């Protein structure tokens, strides 16, 4: 039988395996995070990195770590968590492993917005970029597209299959716009847009990290508050309603959080592909639970993103943007998922 754990008035289901794996994932994420700070043109040992993070480092290390490398590492951590959790929510709500922010139009909308602002120079576009910055504009674009998909999919509640079909269609339109903008743009602008389109953690500043940090923190609190009502949704709308869940309200709040998380992530790192799709699926298999676990999905997302960035910077002969590596891992994994579903 399902064992429980009780602390005063608080009680939870006790799943030792899930707890252990989640703790291990947290430890691994911290380790890779520190490694990613330590490795670079000026290598710093792991113990010195940890000492500096804890505020007991030397002054030289402090400058390199806190001022130069921390923003990039933190951006990777937060973007990974945001994408992982966002993917876990969308896959759960749609009850379909293919539902990820990549497919629900958020990434496509953010990309089209960013490319539009980069390539259509002059006048209003330049003014927008100079006042709010490219990241914030992309965030608004991604958010707008995500909401558009949500409302188009709305027909007396949101049906998962409809959500995915409309998401794919809207994404296709956004990609067409992006391609069209790229073909008629000036070659130098195209180069700048391409860098953004692949997804990269290069040259992150504390300002950009701060935006994604607060977005992620606030949204995670909201998600945690609603998470309890979330469990019965995996059984379908009618069963959830029978169990006393106002499913349309709960789902609207969760999907909005997922869209915002993904948009925040895309604004900070560009459209890093496949993390949101793969992280929840990997997390499910690691913790051996049938539905995407929120915390573990976030951690796997972070691990994947920082790990990919580390690989892209140091293990490969040429320095690549992080998105290339996540796509190289994510693509084959998606194929594996589909083949596995076919064999069933």
């Amino acid at each position, binding site marked *: *039988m*399902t064992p429980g754990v009780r602390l005063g008035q608080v*009680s939870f289901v*006790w799943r030792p395996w899930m707890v252990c794996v989640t703790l291990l994932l947290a430890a691994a994420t911290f380790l890779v995070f520190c490694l990613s700070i330590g490795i670079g043109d000026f290598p710093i040992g792991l113990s010195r990195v940890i000492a500096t993070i804890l505020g007991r480092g030397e002054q030289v290390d402090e400058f390199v770590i806190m001022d130069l490398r921390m923003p990039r590492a933190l951006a990777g951590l937060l973007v990974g968590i945001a994408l992982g959790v966002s993917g876990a929510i969308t896959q759960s709500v749609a009850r379909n492993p293919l539902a990820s922010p990549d497919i629900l139009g958020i990434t496509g909308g953010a990309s089209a917005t960013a490319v539009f602002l980069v390539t259509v120079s002059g006048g209003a576009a330049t003014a927008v970029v100079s006042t709010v910055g490219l990241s914030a504009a992309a965030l608004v674009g991604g958010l707008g597209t995500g909401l558009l998909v949500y409302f188009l999919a709305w027909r007396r509640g949101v049906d998962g299959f409809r959500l995915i079909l409309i998401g794919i269609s809207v994404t296709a339109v956004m990609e067409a716009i992006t391609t069209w903008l790229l073909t008629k743009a000036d070659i130098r602008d195209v180069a700048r847009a391409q860098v953004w389109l692949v997804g990269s953690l290069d040259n992150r500043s504390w300002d950009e990290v701060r935006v994604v940090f607060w977005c992620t923190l606030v949204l995670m609190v909201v998600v945690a508050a609603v998470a*309890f009502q979330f469990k019965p949704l995996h059984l*379908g709308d009618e069963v959830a309603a*029978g169990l*006393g*869940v106002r499913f349309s309200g709960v789902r609207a709040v969760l999907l909005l959080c997922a869209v915002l998380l993904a948009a925040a992530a895309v604004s900070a790192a560009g459209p890093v592909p496949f993390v949101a799709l793969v992280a929840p699926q990997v997390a499910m298999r690691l913790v051996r639970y049938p539905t995407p676990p929120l915390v573990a999905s976030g951690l796997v997302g972070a691990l994947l993103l920082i790990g990919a960035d580390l690989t892209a910077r140091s293990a490969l002969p040429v320095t690549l943007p992080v998105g290339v590596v996540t796509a190289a891992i994510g693509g084959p994994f998606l194929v594996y998922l589909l083949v596995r579903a076919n064999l069933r």
Partner: protein
Amino acid sequence: MGAEHLTKSGPAVEDVPRLAAKGIAVGYGGRTVIDGLDVTVPPGLITTIIGPNGCGKSTLLRTLTRLLKPTAGAVVLDGEDIVKLRTRDVARKLGLLPQAPVAPEGLTVADLVARGRHPHQSWLRQWSSDDVSVVERALAMTGVSDLADRPVDSLSGGQRQRVWISMTLAQGTDLLLLDEPTTYLDLAHAIDVLDLVDDLHESGRTVVMVLHDLNLATRYSDNLVVMRDGSILAQGHPRDVITADLLHEAFGLRAKVIDDPVGGRPLIVPIGRTHVQIN
């Protein structure tokens, strides 16, 4: 013969209906399916809604469980308008099993049944010793304790349906509404599930269900609600309700009604166009 249901319903049953629909009108996006329907669910009995496809049986059941909101009239649960109650409070009084529910791949029987406790839990109190004992009883009562650690999707259709009923039981309500609990089951498994439903009724629960098979409905219900075109054609004990005339009126079905040699209830023998020797 009409007195049978009086003796069968037992002495402990109060005669105050806990669930009733009063003058309800229900529809989907402008199309009215039910218009001005009254029905009461007698306590302690098995009530089965039957009727031809598209007559509004599922719509009625879904309205009784608050899945659909009536555009006129009201569904009354324990004296209160069900629409005005909190979703959670409804879930503590009324258990619902929708048609052909699907569990996530890999979810175990114990985990699924445990989710039936949701209306009694909160963010901080997610799993108490109460929950443990109620879930254990629900598993035992439906005969699926041995399957507790198996994934739901690895079970046969009949076992799976038992598990879902077990989840509804874990909700701890004495009012159960089941939408076609025998869909996709072969006859042997259908009988198995309906015997289980009868056990639940014997232990004091009030059951409302929608069934397609008329003979199973007749055998297993104390109260039949026969619908056609969104209204109720007849209601009462199967012995009083099921006649050849009614079947023709409700379903357009030519049939002979004879005595069921096993159950002492009416048995419907349909007369088709072919393979009929006597008329």
